[in-house]
C-alpha cells in the first residue's frame, strides 16, 4: 500500500481535512480569519442500540480515537 496516511489509520476524508487545515493555516493573516471558519466542526453524535439513544459524544474526539484504534490494528496485522 502506497499511502502512508492509510497505514496510520486515517480515512481519505480525514487525510483531506488535515491537508485542508494545513493550507488554511499557511494563508496570510487577512485571508486566514475568514477561511478558517470553514474548517470548523462542532458536531455531537450518539450511537443507538435497540431503540435507545446512547451518550452524546463529541464527534471530533470520537473520530480521532477511532482512527488511533484503527492504526493499532493495522500495525498488528
Amino acid at each position, binding site marked *: 500500500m502506497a499511502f502512508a496516511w492509510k497505514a496510520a489509520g486515517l480515512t*481519505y*476524508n480525514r487525510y483531506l481535512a488535515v491537508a485542508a487545515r494545513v493550507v488554511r493555516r499557511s494563508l496570510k493573516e487577512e485571508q486566514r480569519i475568514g477561511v478558517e471558519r470553514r474548517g470548523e466542526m462542532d458536531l455531537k*453524535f*450518539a450511537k443507538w442500540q435497540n431503540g435507545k439513544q446512547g451518550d452524546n459524544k463529541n464527534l471530533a474526539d470520537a473520530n480521532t480515537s477511532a482512527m488511533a484504534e484503527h492504526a493499532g490494528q493495522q500495525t498488528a496485522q
Partner: protein
Amino acid sequence: MLSRAARPALRAGAAVTARPIVPNAANFATLREIEGRLKSIRNIEKITKTMKIVASTKLTRAQKAMTESRSYGEASNTVFEKAETKPLEGEGKKTLIVVASSDKGLCGGIHSGLSKYTRAMLHNKPDADIVVLGEKCKAQLGRSNGKNIVLSFANVGKDVPTFADAQAIADQICLLPTDYASIQIVYNKFLNAQSYEPTPVEAFSEEAIKNSPNFAAFEIDDEVLSNLREYALANSLFWALAEGHACEQSARRNAMDNASNNAADMINKFQILFNRTRQAVITGELVEIITGAAASEQ
C-alpha cells in the same frame, strides 16, 4: 361515564366560542382583558417579524452556500453517471438511510416532511438502518422507528454547513460495523423559495461502483476505490446538508411571514373589538349619569 367525561370538553368549547362575543357587556374587566391580549399579540408579531428578518438574511447566505455545494455534488455524481453505476439489487443487502434535517424548529413542515418520507421508505425496506442528522427528525423518527436508528448527530444546522461537517459524518458512517449495499441520503430539495421536496440521493457502495458497466473507462485501482467511495459520500452529504439548510431557512422565512400576517390580522380584529367595547363602556356611563341627573332633578 362518557357524558361526564365529555362535559368538561364541551364546557371548554363553549367558553372559547363565548369569549369573543362580549362587546356589549360594558364592564371594565373585559376591556382590560382585551387590552392585555392585544399587547401580547403585538409582542408576538414583533418577535416573528424579527425572526423573519433574521431568516431572510441567513437565507441569502444559505442559498449561496447551496449553489456552491451543488457543484461538489454534481461533479461527483457525473463520475457515477458516466460509469452508469446502478445501486445493487440483491437479497439480504442492507440499506442505510441518512436523514439530513437540523436542530431547530419553527420552520413549517420541512422536518416532518422528511420524517414522513423516511417512514414511507422504511415501509418498503423494513430492515433498513437510519442515521439521523439533527435533533428534530431524531425526535420524530426516534418515537416511531427507534429500533432502526444506529447513529444520530446533533448540533447540525446552527450555521451554514461546512465540508468539515460532512467529512466527519462520512467518516463516522464508514466506521459503522455493517457493510451497506446502498446508502440513501434523504434531504429537502430546494425547488424555489416557496417549495421544497424530500428527495433521496444515492451514495454507492464499493461493490456497486465496481459492478457499473462503464467502470473500466476510469482506470481506478481497487485500492483507491474505497477512497473514492468515502469522498463521494462526503460530497453527497455536504450537498444534502447545504441544500437542506437553504430549504430550512426559506421555510422559516415563509413560516414567520405567515405568522406575522396572522398576528397583524388578529391585532386588527382585537383593535376594533377594543374600540367598540370602550365606546360601549362610555355610552353606558353616559346613560347612567344622565339618568342619575334626571332622577335627582325631579
